[in-house]
């Protein structure tokens, strides 16, 4: 049977999403029954799109939860080629966003943020290399669109000075910032108070840039 596509076509376990977890992504929190019915209608009519900003927020919350459900499960590197996941390449530190998702969430920042929340919130902190990720949209042509820095702040008073191409940005604990850098390679320097990136409080890096630029997620997890 011919079928029209939707954002969640790639997942067959939407009904296993815990509604209470879904609600935690939504502010103000709607009633559980309302969100559960929305999700069930999404399963019933997968091709539909949100018309309002509120409905888009629910779609993004569903995406976060379904990514979490379908994220990498096998953390034993000995058994893995790409470590068991098509959305996250743990070996190359790449977040792989299907290009067609942009048809349903055109805002690349929101989409990337959903992927970070869904796939990396429970990352292994002891693996310092997981502080940096390259964002790739995958489709007919794969495209690197930017990078994500996940500084490990050790307290609520943490602060990061990020120098991108000579311009300095301040990121405090809990903040999320997207710094534009359209170049293929972006030279970045950082200095962190009460925290570190790649195990260091101060260093310089060369990161992938692109349409997204550099996303810095300073949340304490």
């Amino acid at each position, binding site marked *: *049977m011919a079928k*029209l596509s939707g954002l969640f076509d790639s997942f067959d376990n939407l009904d296993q999403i815990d509604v209470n977890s879904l609600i935690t992504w939504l502010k103000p929190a709607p009633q559980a029954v309302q969100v*559960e*019915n929305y999700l*069930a*209608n999404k399963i*019933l009519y997968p091709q539909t799109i949100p018309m*309002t900003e509120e409905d*888009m927020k629910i779609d993004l919350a569903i995406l976060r939860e379904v990514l979490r459900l379908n994220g990498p499960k096998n953390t034993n590197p000995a058994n893995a080629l790409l470590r068991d996941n098509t959305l996250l390449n743990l070996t190359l530190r790449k977040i792989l966003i299907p290009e067609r998702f942009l048809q*349903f969430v055109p805002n690349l920042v929101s989409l990337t943020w959903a992927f970070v929340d869904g796939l990396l919130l429970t990352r292994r902190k002891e693996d310092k290399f997981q502080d940096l990720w390259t964002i790739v949209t995958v489709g007919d042509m794969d495209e690197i669109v930017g990078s994500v820095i996940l500084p490990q702040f050790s307290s609520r008073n943490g602060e990061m000075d990020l120098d991108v191409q000579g311009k300095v940005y301040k990121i405090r604990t809990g903040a999320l910032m997207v710094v534009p850098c359209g170049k293929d390679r972006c030279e970045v320097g950082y200095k962190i108070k009460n925290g570190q990136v790649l195990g260091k409080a101060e260093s310089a890096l060369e990161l992938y840039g692109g349409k997204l630029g550099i996303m810095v997620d300073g949340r304490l997890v």
Partner: protein
Amino acid sequence: MKQFVPQRVRVEKDVIVRIARVLSGKGTISVSVNQEVKPSDIIGTSNISSGFRILNLATLLGVNPKDVGKYLKRDLGQRIYKGELLAYKPGGIFGGKKAVIAPTDGLLDFLNPQSGEMKMTVLPKKSDLPAGVFGIIESIDQEKGKVTIIAQASRIYGMFGSGKLRDGILEVLGKRESLVDNSFISPKSEGHILLSGSLIYKNAISESISCGVNGIITGGINAKDYRAMAGGRLSFPKKLENDIGISVVVTEGFGSIPMGLDIDDFLLQYNNRFVSIDGNNRIIDLPSYEESSMARVRSTKLPPIQDGVDLEQINKITELQPGAYVRVVGNSYAGEQGKVLAIDESLTLLPSGLSSMLSTIETKRRKIKVPVVNLEAIEYI
């Protein structure tokens, strides 16, 4: 640019179908193959074995559970027959009078003073099975007590459902926008198929089972309640059949969604008439109540097999064109139906941040603009 939408058959008018009639217990079938029957003809008789019914008299009388005994009109251990007065509370300053009628023949077994519930042992009784339709007997299965009748019927396809094939007299509970809770359900509805409104609550489903209702047709249902009926999963089409003692067909979706006018208008014509519903296959059959339908039944030598749902046939993709009749399946304006007046030539940026091709729809009450992808074309057969 051409725009495509899913197309679904919701109502099939006057088709020749097989209607299954099943004895409610062990018994005998009294008709033969190729025999013509009319709705009132008795096609079999069975004995319904005894069981029990629980009636919450405290709730029905609106009194404290420990006070229920004061209002009983029969002693415990006594027999009572269907329609007789079981309990009565006279009216007063704080409330009107309330009467509870015995829903079935039985023996008053036990009253729980903590919960106010009365256990009533049902007496074995003889039950006649009427044909319910104008038709011709196609096959008989004596062992299962099942008779298949070829008849003319209109068929409604819901979105999803639960429960095996059941039948009964259609009883309209309210308007298509009604939110139906347990206050709508009474023992008088025993054996009936209830036409609910835009949402049926869990307590109404529980009360219906308790009252012996055979089925419910509703516009919407809460996902949590459906999940409880359907074995915990939400997958469409359903992979496993379920039955919780009642058959439910949902015509629109999850949450409060008024029943579509196409289905509601049709069902209202069948108020107080015999219908059958198959929750697992989400089919509602409305047999013709006109004797003239027999001419078509007789002339249909090899009726098309309509058992089961051919999803390929009822779910298609079609090009959307002005004049088409559509139904909104997206979250905004969910369930609204109307005619396509126009389809935009260019994309519109929506408040959600998405750009989409919009279509202007004229409903009974207003004109709305909806993304084409949130529409479903309705096909009439």
